[in-house]
C-alpha cells in the first residue's frame, strides 16, 4: 500500500527551539490517529505538513509529493479542519463552504453544488443560509468539516474534531468520520487528545512525545491480537475445567472467585469454550475481550524516556 505520509528526518524549529526532532516513519493506514500530550508536537506536525511551517531539516512526503518542493500540489490533495474556531465573518454557511471550494479550484457552479451537498451531509442542510456568526459551537464544528471535504480531498486533517461538542454532537461527528473512513477513497489524519475518539475512528496510531515519535502501531493488528485475550468470570469452575481449556491449546491463568484469563491460539473458537463449560456444568457469567489496548499503548509510550522508537 502506498504510504500516505512519509517522514524523512523531519525537524522543525521555532527560533532555536526544536519542536519536531528528526521524525522518521511511514504511515499507511486509512485513518491515522495522532496522539500525544499537550506540547508533544501534534499541531506542529500537521501545520508543517500543510506548509505553514518550514522544516529546519529533513522533509516529509504526502502521497509521494514532497512538502518542501511541491507544497501547492500537496495542498491540492488536502482538506483541513482546524482545531480553533475558524470562519469568515459576515458569510452564510453555504457561501463560506462555496468560497473555500472555489479556492481549492472548483468552478463556481460545482463549488455551490458541493457546498450544498456537504452541508446536507454534515446535517446542517436547514441552517445553510444562516450567517456563520449565529452558529452554535457544534454547528461551527460541522461547518468546518463541510469546508474540509467539499472540494473532494484525498487526505483529510482533523485537528481535535470533537472539541467542545456535547455527547450527541460528538457521536454524530464520530459517525461522519467513520463513514468517510469506511468509503476508503479519502484518508484521514485525526489529531486528538481523546483516546476514545482515536480508538473509534482510526486503524493506525502515531504517538508523539516531546517532539519525537514515542510509538507507532497498527491498531487493526493490535485489535486482532487482542481478540485472542479473554477474561472470563465463571461459577463452578475447578481444576478439571482449567485442564480442559489447556487441552484446547489455550494458555490459562485462574484467579480466586472463578476469574480466568486466557490466550486463545489460532483455530480455537469461543463456542468451544462454551461447549466445554456446558459439558462440565460450569457457568460462564462474563466473557470480555481485552479492551484497553490503545490506553496501554499510550501509557507505555509515555513511559519511554525522551520519546523515540
Amino acid at each position, binding site marked *: 500500500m502506498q504510504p500516505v505520509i512519509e517522514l524523512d528526518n523531519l525537524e522543525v524549529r*521555532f*527560533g532555536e*527551539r526544536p519542536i519536531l526532532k528528526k521524525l522518521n516513519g511511514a504511515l499507511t493506514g486509512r485513518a491515522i490517529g495522532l496522539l500525544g500530550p499537550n506540547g508533544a508536537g501534534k*499541531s506542529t506536525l500537521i*501545520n508543517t505538513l*500543510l*506548509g*505553514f*511551517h518550514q522544516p529546519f531539516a529533513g522533509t516529509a512526503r504526502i502521497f509521494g509529493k514532497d512538502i518542501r518542493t511541491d507544497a*501547492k*500540489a500537496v*495542498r*491540492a490533495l*488536502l*482538506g*483541513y479542519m*482546524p482545531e*480553533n*474556531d*475558524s*470562519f*469568515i*465573518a*459576515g458569510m452564510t454557511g453555504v*457561501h463560506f463552504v462555496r*468560497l*473555500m471550494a*472555489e*479556492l*481549492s*479550484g*472548483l*468552478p463556481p457552479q*460545482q463549488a455551490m453544488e*458541493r457546498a*450544498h*451537498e456537504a452541508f*446536507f*451531509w454534515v446535517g446542517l*442542510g436547514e441552517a445553510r443560509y444562516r450567517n456563520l456568526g449565529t452558529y452554535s459551537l457544534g454547528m461551527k464544528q460541522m461547518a468546518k468539516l463541510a*469546508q474540509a*471535504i467539499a*472540494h*473532494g480531498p*484525498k487526505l483529510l*486533517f482533523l485537528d481535535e474534531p470533537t472539541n467542545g461538542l456535547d455527547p450527541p454532537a460528538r457521536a454524530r461527528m464520530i459517525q461522519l468520520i467513520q*463513514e*468517510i473512513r469506511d*468509503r476508503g*477513497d*479519502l484518508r484521514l489524519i485525526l489529531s486528538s487528545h481523546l483516546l476514545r475518539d482515536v480508538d473509534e475512528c482510526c486503524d493506525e496510531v502515531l504517538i508523539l512525545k516531546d517532539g519525537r515519535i514515542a510509538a507507532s502501531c497498527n491498531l487493526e493488528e493490535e485489535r486482532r491480537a487482542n481478540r485472542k485475550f479473554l477474561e472470563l468470570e465463571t461459577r463452578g469452575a475447578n481444576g478439571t475445567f482449567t485442564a480442559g481449556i489447556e487441552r484446547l491449546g489455550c494458555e490459562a491463568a485462574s484467579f480466586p472467585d472463578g476469574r480466568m484469563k486466557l490466550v486463545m491460539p489460532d483455530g480455537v473458537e469461543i463456542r468451544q469454550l462454551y461447549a466445554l463449560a456446558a459439558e462440565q456444568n460450569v457457568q460462564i457469567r462474563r466473557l470480555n475481550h481485552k479492551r484497553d489496548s490503545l490506553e496501554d499503548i499510550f501509557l507505555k509510550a509515555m513511559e519511554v524516556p525522551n520519546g523515540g522508537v
Partner: protein
Amino acid sequence: MAVFKHAYKGYEGALTPAWSRFLILPRYAFAEKRRSRFFSLFFLVSILAPLIFALLIYVQHSLSAMKLLQIGSSNLITVNAAFFMNLLGWQSMMTLFLAAFVGPGQISPDLANNALPLYLSRPFSRAEYVLGKMSVLLILMSIMTWIPGLLLFILQASLEGNGWFGQNLRIAGAIFLGSWIWILFLSLLSLALSAWVKWKPMAGGLLFGSFFVAAGFGGAINAILRTSWGNLINISHLIGTVWTSLFERPMHRGSGAFFFRVHGGDVPTWCCWMALVLICAGCLYLLSHKIRGAEVVR
C-alpha cells in the same frame, strides 16, 4: 451526487486555472459591498468630479454650448497637465476615504476569526491571498483614478485634434503611472494596517492618522528644526512631489494637485521616491509577518 443521497463523495471534475484563483476574493468582496448602500452612494459621488471635468472639456470645445451658457470666446479653462493633475488629486483624495472604508475590512476580520488557516491550507499561497485582497482595492481605485483620467484625456484629444494627443502623450503616461503609484501605495498601507490592527475602526483611523498626523508631525519638525526634511514623513507631500515630476510641472511653491500640493521643493524628488519605496517595503514586511497559516510562538 444528488443532495438526497447525503453521502460523502470525492470530486473528479475539472478545476479552474491556478493563476486566476486570487480573483475569487475580489468577486466575493464586491458581492458583499454591493449590499452596502453607503458604499454605493459613495461610489456614485466619487464619479461626480470626472463628470464635471468631462463637461468642462465638452463646453470648452462646443461653440453652441458656450453661446448657450453665454461664455465668451476666450478659453473657459486650459486643459493641460495642471488640469489632469487636479483631477487626479481630487480623485485620489476620494480613494483615501475609500481605502479607510474598505481597506480595514480586508484582512483584520480574517485574522480576528482565525480564517487564515482555512485559506492557506489550500493550493492558495500567501502572496495570492494578499494579491486577492489587494485586488479589491486596486480595482475600485482604478475605476476612480486612472480610468476616468485616461477617458478624459481621450475625450480632450478627440475634441482638440491638431496633434494634441501626440504632444501631450506624457500627460497620459503621468496619469497612468501616477495613479498606480498612489493606489499601490495606498492599498499596501491599508492592508498592512488592516493586518496589524485586528479592529476595523482602529485600522481605518490609523490610515487617516498616517496621513494627517504624520503630516502635522512633519510640519512641526520643519518648523522647529528650520528644515524641510520633515516632509519625508508627509505622505501627501511625497506623492505630490512624485506626481509633479511625472507631469513635468515646475517645482515652485504651491505646485501640485489638490490635497497633494507641494509646498516648496527642498526635498529632492529621489528622496521622496525612496521614502515611498521604504514605506511600501515596511508594509510588505508587516504583511509577510502577519499573513501566516499558523502563528509561531518562539
